[in-house]
């Protein structure tokens, strides 16, 4: 009963269009004032201490690093490198788009940022080369979603915060699925282009590959700083994020010189505003999960599920359906923060690995970003291509279907995500 009231209230408040953070907070307050004995003081304390964790501070740093890279000409050089590598295949620029998105995703933690950084340069080029607009938009919108699967990833940090899982393990676990999904998307692109006879580029001479690699190497090095730094134990994930922010700053301003010192405060301000928004959602989501825990809701749900003798297969199916449904109306960070504390205890009781669950949720969020009505990637892509959301929805479907197939693989084949961290001895 309590559960129904809490969620009913939350959903009702959300549907009025007010910020998600405010609806979370108001739900908690209403409940506290009317229905429970939890002392207000302990709630006030949560408001202060809810985000007092060093791991959470990785989020602003990764956002800052991503913003420097987006402005700093890193994307442009990565596209040139990707084009030199795979441009001669069928659907040349399209496959370059997938590869460039995967590379950029490995230095940035956000999907929409990847779509913008790669799409705004590559899409016009594709159209000029005679690709149909739909094809280009479809490739970039879906490949951009790699941004949150390939580490670093802001959604994974959110999951780690909500469930006390290790950020490092999650990052490493995202590597193999990220590469597999990129390959699958690339294959679909190649197949469609081959069947429709889309243009390809002349094979780039090896010298050209080397040159573009050297130019993009400064950006690619960031992958080594983040992954190598965390895996090698040189930095904590948060420190790695701060290092990559400083590194991205140096590369954009002093090496590539695509960003002037004068623009830096603006980049800082934008990153700060975006981080503040996410941190504010976290604060209120922590409050919300505190309320749920003090009402024993996740535990009760877990016990109920166990009593029903649910099989793991069915449970995972239900989780996927629930997350995809939520992905229809909300953005990834909020979903992860609200849903993860609910799903997590049940999953643990059913013997599902926490890291596997994290990767599964992240892939779900990816799918959610590419389909209407609230697919952020779609909106960003529509801003770049001037295509309507409906038309884009049609454009993305071959790749979206691929992602759904991939989601099934990730869900029911845990070794895909758990193999690498196990081999590396991280878990």
């Amino acid at each position, binding site marked *: 009963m309590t559960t129904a009231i809490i969620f009913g209230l939350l959903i009702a408040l959300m549907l009025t269009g007010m910020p998600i953070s405010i609806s979370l907070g108001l739900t908690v307050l209403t409940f506290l004032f009317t229905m429970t004995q939890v002392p207000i003081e302990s709630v006030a*304390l949560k408001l202060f201490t809810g985000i007092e964790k060093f791991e959470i501070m990785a989020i602003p740093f990764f956002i800052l690093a991503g913003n420097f890279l987006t402005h700093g000409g890193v994307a442009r050089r990565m596209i040139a490198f990707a084009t030199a590598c795979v441009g001669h295949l069928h659907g040349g620029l399209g496959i370059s788009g997938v590869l460039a998105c995967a590379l950029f995703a490995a230095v940035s933690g956000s999907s929409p940022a990847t779509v913008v950084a790669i799409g705004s340069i590559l899409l016009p080029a594709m159209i000029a080369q005679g690709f149909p607009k739909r094809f280009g938009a479809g490739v970039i919108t879906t490949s951009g979603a790699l941004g949150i699967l390939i580490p670093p990833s802001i959604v994974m940090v959110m999951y780690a915060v909500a469930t006390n899982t290790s950020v490092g393990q999650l990052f490493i676990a995202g590597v193999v699925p990220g590469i597999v999904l990129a390959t699958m998307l690339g294959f679909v692109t190649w197949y469609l282009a081959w069947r429709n006879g889309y243009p390809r580029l002349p094979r780039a001479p090896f010298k050209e590959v080397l040159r573009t690699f050297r130019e993009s190497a400064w950006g690619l090095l960031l992958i080594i700083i983040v992954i190598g730094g965390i895996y090698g134990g040189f930095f904590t994930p948060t420190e790695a994020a701060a290092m990559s922010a400083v590194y991205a700053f140096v590369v954009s301003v002093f090496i590539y010189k695509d960003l002037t010192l004068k623009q830096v405060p603006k980049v800082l301000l934008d990153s700060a505003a975006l981080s503040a928004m996410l941190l504010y959602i976290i604060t209120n989501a922590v409050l919300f999960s505190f309320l749920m825990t003090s009402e024993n809701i996740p535990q009760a749900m877990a016990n109920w599920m166990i009593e029903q003798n649910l099989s793991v297969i069915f449970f995972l199916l239900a989780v996927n359906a629930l997350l995809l449904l939520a992905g229809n109306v909300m953005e990834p960070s909020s979903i992860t923060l609200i849903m993860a504390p609910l799903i997590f205890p049940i999953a643990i009781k059913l013997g599902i690995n926490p890291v596997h669950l994290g990767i599964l949720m992240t892939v779900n969020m990816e799918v959610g970003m590419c389909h209407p009505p609230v697919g952020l990637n779609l909106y960003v892509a529509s801003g770049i291509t001037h295509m309507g959301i409906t038309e884009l929805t049609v454009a993305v479907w071959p790749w979206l279907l691929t992602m759904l197939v991939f989601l099934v693989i990730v869900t029911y084949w845990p070794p895909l995500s758990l193999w690498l961290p196990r081999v590396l001895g991280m878990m």
Partner: protein
Amino acid sequence: MVLKFLDHLEEWLITFLMGAATLLIFVAVIHRYLSGMAIPGVQDFLLTLNLSWAQELCIYMFIWMAKIGAAYGVRTGIHVGVDVLINVLSDQWRKRFIIFGLLAGAVFTGIVGTFGVRFIWELYHTEQVSADLELPMWLVYMGLPIGSYLMCFRFLQVCYQFIKTGHFPRPDHGKVEGIETETDPIAAAIEADDQIRMGGKS
């Protein structure tokens, strides 16, 4: 005039906090590795510096940034909501819901701010200090009531403007700061025709 100043103060503060916190952690990490290297003279000097408080300070800086930045976010419309339902309503009802949402925001932040003041008041009479920096806790946590009241004020300000002009800042999904999307895709495509140099920023 006062409002303009407040606007700028907000922006300066969060810009500064973002930059300073990044530098701080960067310096702390570099310090940790440099002081482990046996460079004569430098090592002794570095070992006299103790940067163990960096992590704590970074957390507090980001908390202040989050609180003030959240208020800045209300003014610039960065807080995301679920607007699928209200977008299909008639204009009149949509307007009512938006005003309701903004006022709800003001109420929530107002209440939280008041919690904060009461909490700080109690803390002020204790001797609690933070673990590493030994700052008085009431000072550290002051960001919460300040930020929350500021946010409350911003919600009311936005609400007033909305009633008066019918405009309010909202998250723009179609645009990510910094990359200006092409207004004319054809011209842009021609410009980007130069494959290898990839056209540069437009």
